[in-house]
């Protein structure tokens, strides 16, 4: 095999296997940094041997065997100088120096699904900052290299590398960080995992236009993590709810900006450009969530709202009454004032601008929305529809001063100017 083909093939194997490899090694050596080093060493060995010998029939087992042999070597060295390592070395050594390596590898691969979930839990440990959680998740679970992570977050490789080092130290110092949480702690950790996945998705999704390939890749990675979680936690409705939400939003990716990168609002999008595969998968995931749970959680409700849009052949077909109802349920879960603002929009679409305005007027004095440009923007729109043009104009102008986006400011000032026109 030519050298270049071989290294690309090895990179592919690495991408497919690194998560499970690192996850299983974390269980065996009980140290995230050490596990990652061992996995890297196995990769280096593969790069040295596979181009000549060919890719083994079972590359996952080969990598695992190699990494475990390195672990045994290191344990043996460490045994002489480090007592704590020696304890682990003795506990694990019997298994690892077993001549029947194939059997132990199969054994190690047996619990691998649990390992991957545990690795996700570790990456989202509460002692870590949210930046550290997202970075570690991309690195250890996503198998992304530092350069790719830096590009995703528009930051430098040095920053990412340092973040990883610090995160590993935090985990080592946190004590028991590698233990799998149970009970209420498990539920809240799973929630942390879900929010990291959704954060990654939004990081990719919120960047419109541009030719940066890493942003769409981030969305794809989040979707993949969502699918993994769905397979690992099939009975959790929020896991499926999150997948549904991300799939339904992904369906709109190509329709949400014009050729010059101008954002196109949901109701103005050409729905024939929505991706049917994502849409179908999103609706299927939502159905799965709904079958599991009659008391929907946050992601399931957001997905249900996205599904109302996804099911409507045209914007005019949108079931706004249902959307308003879903926003009300979201608000009851402790939604933010932004949820209430969205509910007001849905109410106005379902029952007329006056109904929406009644709710918006109750939100005007909320501190959380004081500098939120969409509040005056929505209020201006409703006032305009009610014929109260002078008040609408003032609201659009106020919204224009609050937004940070140039294109949006221009759009708002246009609307303000239109209020002055007769008719």
């Amino acid at each position, binding site marked *: 095999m030519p050298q270049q083909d071989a290294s690309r093939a090895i*990179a592919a194997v690495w*991408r497919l296997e690194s998560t499970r490899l690192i996850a299983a090694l974390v269980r065996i050596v009980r140290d995230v940094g050490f596990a990652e080093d061992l996995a890297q060493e196995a990769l280096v060995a593969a790069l040295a041997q596979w181009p000549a010998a060919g890719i083994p*029939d079972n590359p996952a087992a080969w990598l695992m065997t190699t990494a475990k042999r390195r672990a045994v070597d290191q344990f043996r060295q460490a045994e002489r100088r480090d007592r704590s390592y020696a304890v682990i070395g003795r506990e694990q050594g019997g298994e690892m120096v077993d001549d029947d390596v194939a059997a132990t590898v199969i054994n190690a691969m047996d619990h691998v699904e649990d390992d991957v979930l545990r690795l996700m839990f570790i990456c989202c440990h509460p002692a870590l900052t949210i930046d550290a959680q997202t970075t570690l998740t991309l690195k250890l679970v996503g198998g992304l290299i530092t350069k790719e992570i830096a590009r995703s977050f528009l930051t430098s490789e040095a920053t990412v590398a340092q973040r990883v080092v610090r995160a590993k130290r935090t985990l080592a110092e946190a004590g028991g960080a590698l233990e799998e949480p149970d009970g209420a702690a498990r539920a809240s950790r799973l929630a942390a995992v879900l929010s990291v996945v959704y954060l990654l998705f939004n990081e990719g999704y919120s960047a419109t236009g541009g030719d940066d390939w890493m942003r769409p890749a981030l969305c794809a990675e989040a979707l993949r993590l969502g*699918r993994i979680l769905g397979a690992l936690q099939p009975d959790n409705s929020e896991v499926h709810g999150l997948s549904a939400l991300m799939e339904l939003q992904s369906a709109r990716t*190509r329709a949400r900006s014009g050729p010059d990168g101008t954002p196109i609002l949901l109701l103005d999008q050409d729905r*024939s450009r929505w991706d049917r595969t994502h849409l179908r998968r999103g609706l299927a995931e939502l159905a799965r969530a709904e079958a599991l749970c009659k008391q929907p959680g946050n992601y399931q409700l957001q997905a249900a709202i996205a599904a109302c849009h996804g099911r409507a052949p045209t914007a005019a077909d949108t079931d706004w009454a249902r959307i308003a109802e879903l926003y009300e349920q979201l608000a009851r879960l402790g939604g933010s004032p932004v949820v209430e603002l969205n509910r007001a929009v849905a109410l106005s679409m379902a029952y007329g601008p006056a109904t929406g305005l009644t709710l918006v007027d109750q939100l005007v004095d909320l501190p959380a929305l004081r500098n939120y440009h969409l509040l005056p923007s929505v209020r201006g729109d409703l006032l305009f529809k009610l014929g109260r043009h002078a008040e609408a104009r003032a609201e659009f102008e106020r919204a224009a001063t609050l937004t940070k986006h140039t294109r949006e400011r221009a759009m708002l000032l246009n609307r303000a100017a239109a209020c002055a026109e007769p008719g």
Partner: protein
Amino acid sequence: MRFMSFIKSDESMPWGPPPPALFEAMGQFAKEGYENGTLVEQGGLGASGQGAIVSLVDNTITVLDGPFTEAKELIGGYAVTEVRTKEEAIELGRRLLQIHLDNWPGWQGSCEIRQLFADDGAPAT
């Protein structure tokens, strides 16, 4: 990147029917695919005797009912995968054939791997 892979072989199965071990190994492979996020969906195709080919030759449309005895390799199943490089899709195809090699003595065939594109000609994501 989304790929669709087709598994193709001689429908008459001169090497005999698939042994139970194959189904078990394929089931495990699919489970792994769902758990590592690469497998999006998969499905098997019925025998060509249950299908038909509609063709247009020399301005004439004809319908040929199955079985398609003349074709050497027919599609038996498909999978849609979501991977990051073509090499990953190839590696998954290689593993699929490895499973056949390990569990179905004498089997011969191929796995055709094709990237999926969206309506506007952009790669499907």
